């Protein structure tokens, strides 16, 4: 049996115009509109994260490869007293692993992106296991910007949106954009909270 199409969801803009009922849960109406009026989350409209994010990831992998090479070399030669060809092979393996990780990180950084719509915020990430998280502004409890030392060096920031049932970690934003996004989220969340309070009378 072929499944039927999902029922038509109401358009946010249409439903928002419904007059507040009193009490709010008794006479609430939720009008239906045509499906093409509902804005869809377009996979092609995700904004990429800042290019500096890929550079930061590569820098971290490079740093790890240097530490790993030195560690393998010192432990292999001085502690375990291994033959030079063995140590060189081990170092080559470490470098090859780091190169693979670097390629993976680059691909992931290129795939990461966010999309802001009038009512929600979406973040896409993952290369092998892919994921798109969407958090409506009406559910944002608070927004935080974090900037670690490496992020500061690359002029980046992480926007952390928290709701009562999960959080969204938007990495790879440049400083200016993270500030603007945070302001936008907080303003929208505040406006919706006020609207909810008015609805409750």
């Amino acid at each position, binding site marked *: 049996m072929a499944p*039927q199409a*999902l*029922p*038509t969801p109401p358009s946010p803009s249409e439903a928002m115009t419904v007059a*507040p009922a009193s009490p*709010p849960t008794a006479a609430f109406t939720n009008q239906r509109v045509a499906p093409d009026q509902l804005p869809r989350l377009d996979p092609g409209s995700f904004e990429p994260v800042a290019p500096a994010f890929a550079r930061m990831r590569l820098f971290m992998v490079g740093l790890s490869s240097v530490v790993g090479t030195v560690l393998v070399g010192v432990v292999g030669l001085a502690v375990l007293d291994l033959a030079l060809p063995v140590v060189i092979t081990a170092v080559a393996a470490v470098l090859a692993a780091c190169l693979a990780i670097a390629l993976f990180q680059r691909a992931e950084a290129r795939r990461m992106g966010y999309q802001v719509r009038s009512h929600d915020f979406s973040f896409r990430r993952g290369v092998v296991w892919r994921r798109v998280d969407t958090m*409506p502004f009406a*559910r944002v409890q608070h927004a935080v910007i974090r900037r670690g030392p490496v992020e500061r060096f690359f002029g980046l920031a992480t926007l952390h949106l928290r709701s*009562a049932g999960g959080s969204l970690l938007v990495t790879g934003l440049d400083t200016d954009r993270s500030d603007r996004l945070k302001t936008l989220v907080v303003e929208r969340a505040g406006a919706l909270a006020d609207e909810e309070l008015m609805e409750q009378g």
Partner: protein
Amino acid sequence: MTAALTADRQRLADPSRQSPGAIIFMAFRFLRQLNIFQIAVPFYLFISGRLSLEFLGLGALALVLWLAAAVVKWWRYVFWIEGDELKVARGVFSLERTAIPLDRVQSVSIEQQVLHRLVNLVRVSVDTAGSSSAELVLDAVSRDSAEALQRLAADFQASRVVTTTGAEAGEEPGTSQHVPPPPSRVLVKRTPLELVKVGLARWPLAGLVVLGPLVAAGADIAETFAEQLGGFLPDGLVVEEELDSLSTSAIVGLLLLVVAVAALLGWTLQVLRSILTDWNLTVTQTAEGLRRDAGLVSRRSHASKTRRIQSVDWQQSPVERLLGISRLRLQIIGEGDLVVPGADEADVSTLNAIAFGGATSDSPPPDRGVSSAMVFLAVRNAAFAMVASVLGLVVLSRLSPEIDWRWWMVTPLLIVPLQLASSWWRWRNLRWGANSGRIVRTERFVGRHRVEMENIKAQMVSVTESPFQRRRSLASVTVSTPEGGMSVPMLANDEAGDLRDLVLAGIESDSRAWM
């Protein structure tokens, strides 16, 4: 305002302390804050006799200080109702004053543990919208004060201020009046016989899990005891020899007997547990929402606003189905869920109607399935694991002369057809449905399971694709709520997108408060 509520206000108007019995609970709460290491080290030093007299003196001083701190803490902790706020003042060196507006109080739970019953006091937890755990806990107060607080909070939840036009009643325009809350109504009440049914319907061996460590410890003790008494035991009591002499059928019979005794013991424990925890279980519809009272030794009263219900989880095991009962769990933010065991169809229908009382749409029929790739994935994973384990055994038998190849070593492969059958059955009976207001998911394997929630309860919607799913253009949708949420696996990409958009539209077009 009624006379009863006026009396409640007067009762709580003066700043008052908790009962002196609260000192004990406050002291114990401090103990609970210590970690196991902080308790175990002094205890070990004490019992091993490594503590000198001076250290013992210091310990005694610490004990006195600990009790004194609890007394001072109790003395400096006062609460009262002032205007429309519950106020609390506490602190010894730095004074902390908390004001909780009564209209922000989501629920007031009253609990009476064993120690409370001895001194006829109760513990009160006050939940507010701003916290997922209790905002305020009064360790030990009189039941009258607790119930007065519960009634006042309930009155604020139910009564609403209505601005009158003055046209009908002849009142001045713009004046406000309180609408009295609806009267309380008992929805569910469990009799002892129903609780016995609930206990019998539970899996009997589950109760024995708690006995596992005791049995293990018991074996060690018995072994030690047997070693000490070894010289006195007759030779016939050596267990290994006894078992060797038994025939296969006798061993099977013995095992069956052990299982039967264990099941009987398990059922007895489950019935006892059901009676102890759910004695006189009553679910009442109050002005603020729902209240659940239950317990024989430790009695707990948990009240919560209907709006705090995030989803409704219904389960029915085959035995429960036979007995015509089921288990309903209303998942609530904060201090625990509201669980109703032994619910019949009428109970389920009533509680569902209350949980979804403000919903804007009917329950969607769970008429949609998921991709059969779910079966393939489960069977493929099981086949990989089982073939790998059989190959491992083959290699071991070739490499190690101590391990001989036996025909039964291929029996793990039997798991594959079993997995095929079970996952096929699971897939066939996994159904979901959604509309602009609600989402529902039902499963039927050994038992039946149904979860339903309103879209406005969702906090975040995620669409995930594993490499396996991506190759088949499939995805899973997870709808998160503060109390878990719901996941629909193995949907076609378009359908997953549709479901996400539908839930988001539900959240974003509905301006009712989600909590």
